[in-house]
């Protein structure tokens, strides 16, 4: 890892050995640039890069590519998310080239939530290739300077390649192997699903470290502060692949309703403290869902500021 792969800020921060801190920003359900720019202000300077979600939960929003470019223009570094649900290999390669041309240097390769959960459940899905192959595709374009068909690319796109990992979905025993496969396919960094079950995540990271995966890839632990007990209950019941222990729900319920968001933030801060010490964890990915304005406070209280300039 002597040479930079994309030269993104996130890559530099991780390569220099800093504890990375990334954020997330969902584009609006409209072409509202003003609201997007307002969200940017909460993130700017408080995180190393910002994930720009790609029609998350299969709900139509401003394109992640366009929103990523708007972010570049505002002096933030995007982590451009791309899902396999909406694009075939032609559209993917085309958008990867376009992303590089627009100054985007990080990508997160995802399968994508199934369209039946979104606001156009009648839609046809694509799934021409899957997330594992998307990782391999971005790596090939970057390292070999070739398209999938082996034609040479005129100016190869340089991306720092990210992938997701959900240690809380089933079958649990396979999850670490799936992670290993993503790293072999070409993932430079991993962002995990939101972690709430710390016991399970500790066990998972032990497996990761035992297999030496943390030496081959930067692993960022996913943190989502709970706004209240209702949100925790909802996620437990309705969001597939989420593991929300009753302990956490009871902890939130145990305080006055008006103090539940503070309790949620306290839990997130405790998690971040533990992740800073946890072997194999290279940073935190903070997913403050529709709560971007809380990011400055959380970053401050998590003592991850100022962000390193590399």
């Amino acid at each position: 890892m002597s040479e930079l792969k994309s030269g993104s800020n996130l890559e530099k921060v991780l390569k220099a050995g800093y504890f990375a801190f990334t954020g997330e920003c969902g584009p609006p359900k409209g072409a509202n640039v003003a609201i997007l720019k307002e969200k940017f202000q909460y993130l700017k300077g408080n995180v190393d890069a910002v994930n720009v979600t790609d029609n998350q939960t299969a709900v139509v929003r401003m394109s992640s590519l366009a929103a990523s470019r708007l972010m570049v223009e505002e002096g933030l570094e995007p982590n451009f998310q791309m899902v396999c649900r909406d694009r075939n290999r032609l559209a993917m390669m085309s958008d990867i080239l376009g992303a590089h041309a627009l100054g985007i240097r990080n990508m997160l390769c995802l399968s994508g939530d199934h369209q039946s959960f979104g606001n156009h459940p009648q839609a046809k899905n694509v799934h021409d290739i899957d997330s594992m192959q998307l990782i391999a595709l971005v790596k090939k374009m970057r390292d070999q300077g070739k398209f999938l068909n082996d034609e040479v690319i005129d100016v190869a796109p340089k991306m720092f390649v990210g992938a997701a990992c959900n240690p809380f979905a089933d079958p649990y025993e396979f999850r670490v192997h799936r992670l290993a496969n993503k790293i072999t396919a070409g993932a430079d960094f991993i962002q995990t699903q939101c972690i709430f079950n710390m016991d399970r995540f500790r066990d998972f990271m032990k497996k990761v470290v035992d297999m030496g995966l943390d030496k081959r890839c930067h692993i960022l632990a996913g943190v989502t502060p709970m706004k209240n007990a209702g949100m925790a209950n909802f996620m437990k019941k309705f969001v597939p692949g989420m593991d929300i222990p009753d302990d956490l729900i009871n902890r939130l319920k145990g305080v006055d309703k008006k103090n539940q968001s503070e309790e949620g933030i306290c839990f997130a801060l405790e998690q971040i403290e533990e992740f800073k010490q946890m072997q194999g964890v290279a940073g935190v990915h903070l997913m403050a869902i529709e709560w971007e304005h809380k990011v400055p406070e959380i970053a401050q209280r998590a003592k991850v500021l100022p962000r390193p300039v590399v």
Partner: protein
Amino acid sequence: MIVADRKPIQEILAMIKADKKILILGCKGCVTVCNVGGVKESEILASTLKIARKQQGNDIDIDVRVLERQCDNEYVAQIKDIVNDYESVVSLACGVGPQFLSEMYRGKKFYPGVNTTFFGGAVQHGIWEERCAGCGTCSIHDFGGFCPIARCAKSLLHGPCGGSSKGICEVNPDTICVWDAIVTKKMEAGEIEDLMGVKGFKDWRTSRDGGPRRSIREELIQGNI
């Protein structure tokens, strides 16, 4: 086999609303096996339509015939002497039937009486499940005997997505996560390595993406077999 579902009776009534004399044409192939378009179902549909039309004060004459198959012109030709006796024909075969019929009898109207759904089989009496997507490049053996193209909602080739929970697919609580089944089988057999590495990018030309497909068997064309 090809599995089909009944169409709502109101939909069929709307199709034939202008007709006074129709033929219901069943099929002894797959739709008989999946209890949607055989002799029994054809007769039940005829009775149901007659009663409904009688209630509307608009009686209809309905005859029933059931062909050996509707995906073979040899059998489709068997109604050539009677087809003109009817204003329209409701075919209870899969989607192939109304098309073979329309191609042979150009002036006639053929309505699909069923919704053709998938290639699958009966997992218990009265329940059929999809097993094959007809992608044209079978590699079931690479996945422990399961097809993730047909049976994973995202056609994933490298393991279960984050929505796999307790062996069930997040998209439908009645559907197993096929990747859970594949992984469990491979882990039990100590063959987890088979699932590692990046699989070759699928060539979808053999599937519908290559355009409508033809299957050519030269030896049969030449009459050698």
